[in-house]
């Protein structure tokens, strides 16, 4: 019969209309700024630099090898190597970045800088609320703003960070064992 489908459709929409007031499960919208969904562990948006300890200048893992700068596809990383050196976590003298800038507006979140870094110094952050009202200076992040403590890394990517921690502990133990055996050899 003509019109039967229209009546059925009207009943269906009426059911949805009334149901949305009764059954809260129907409303799937997440009211974003107030409510938010948990971020997945593998979520990534923009890189940050890891530092150990409390002092970010002292503990920065980056040795300014500039591999990430060269590998970055949109070329958003800018590094200037230091003149002097400072000891890294195993006590070896290394350069450090005098300037380390990343442009938020250019970065495409590809994670290639993370993959090529031999020093576990750069990792992806999952913070996605990076908007600013200053589109030039506000989007060019310097070393001070990029540096994050290692605890932050452990908190946002626990599985991956645990692996890194284990590897670094191993390296450190190896270096210490070497150091312990070397003075003995020199003494001989």
């Amino acid at each position, binding site marked *: 019969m003509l*019109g039967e489908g229209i009546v059925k459709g009207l009943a269906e*929409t009426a059911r949805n209309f009334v149901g949305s007031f009764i059954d809260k499960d129907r409303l799937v919208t997440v009211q974003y700024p107030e409510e938010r969904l948990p971020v997945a562990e593998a979520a990534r948006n923009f890189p940050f630099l890891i530092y150990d300890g409390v002092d970010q200048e002292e503990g920065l893992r980056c040795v300014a090898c500039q591999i990430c700068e060269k590998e970055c596809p949109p070329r958003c990383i800018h590094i200037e190597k230091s003149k002097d050196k400072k000891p890294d976590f195993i006590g070896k003298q290394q350069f450090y970045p005098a300037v380390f800038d990343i442009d938020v507006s250019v970065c495409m979140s590809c994670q290639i800088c993370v993959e090529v870094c031999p020093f576990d110094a750069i990792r992806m952050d999952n913070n996605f609320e990076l908007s600013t009202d200053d589109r030039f200076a506000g989007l060019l992040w310097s070393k001070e703003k990029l540096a994050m403590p290692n605890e932050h890394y452990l908190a946002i990517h626990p599985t991956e960070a645990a692996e890194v921690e284990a590897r670094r502990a191993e390296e450190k133990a190896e270096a210490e064992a070497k150091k312990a055996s070397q003075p003995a050899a020199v003494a001989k």
Partner: protein
Amino acid sequence: MLDQVFVLLKHWLVGRSPAVMQPSVSILLTIVPILLVFPLLFAVTTVLERKGLGRIQNRYGPNRVGLYGILQPLADAVKSLTKEDIVPSSADHTVHFLAPLVLLAVAFLPYAVLPMGRNMVAVNLDSGVLFFFAIGAISELSVFMAGWSSRNKYSLLGAMRAVAQMISYEVPLLLSSIAVIMAAGSLSTVEIVEKQAGFSGIFPHWYVLTPWGFAGFVLFMIAATAETNRSPFDLPEGESEIIAGYYIEYSGFKFALFFLGEYLGMFAISGLGITLFLGGWSAPLPFLTWVPSWIWFFGKLLGLIIGFIWVRGTLPRLRMDQLMNFAWKFMLPMALVVVVSAGAWRFLPQGVTRWLVSMVFIAAAYVLLARGVETRNKIAKRTYRFAE
């Protein structure tokens, strides 16, 4: 007393003004409320519509501006006022500028003959219904002005669709109201409402409560939906096909004016539907006559607006051939049957016979015409004669 509060207020204000000013004050006090109330109703309707459609689709709808989003129209107004107003360089600037103004002027004029309450009509024309349809036909002109002057293929397509659709659906719209005019014996909207204001038992004398009146009302509302370019008859806009149809090249406040004009047209035609079929400002039950008449009119108007929103949330857009088939092969013959049935109702003696005759007329026509509409649109597997 409360029923006539606005009428008395107007008379009091006119009486207080100097004698030379009285005619102009009287005119002003008639026009200004119309110019205020209906755009306000438009603001309320936009937020109602967005929230209603949201709920139909299990969403919240706008809920950011003000409590539960009720101030959303204000934010929309600020947005459309601050937007850049772009006119295409190859457009016909004068016509492009005039089109929304013509639409708006035409959208306001029909309110002159709508009785919004007892003694609440701007002008009581003897041929009020005729005036309403004559003015309504001008809106086609403004739509075509907009589509033509934009110099855009899509807007021209949209305008041509709009004109074809509006002219096709004007025929059943007029025919279904002719049934009422025949029964009431008058073209005056005030008189038509007064004819429906009585009661027999607890039932009001509304024309919608007769078989031909009910069929006429349904036809009238379908044609009204098409006439105001609302979903499912929104082919002239057709966002997914021709982007925004005839107002593709309008931005900023001109676009908002088009929107306002369209909604005002919807309210006006709903108002006419109420006047013709739903007894205008008259109460639905005899013991409710103490409620002010204007509350009944605006209550019914709100009811029809909710109906429009509900239909918009339910039905998908028609195809052009379906639209035309429906208008000429179903609506038009059906409207003619309604006219005949109303005539039979008028001349048969009161009683069960005229109910039966009228019902049989309508039901038989409906069944037969529905069969025709349905079989023509049967989907079959396509066979190719030459391209095998």
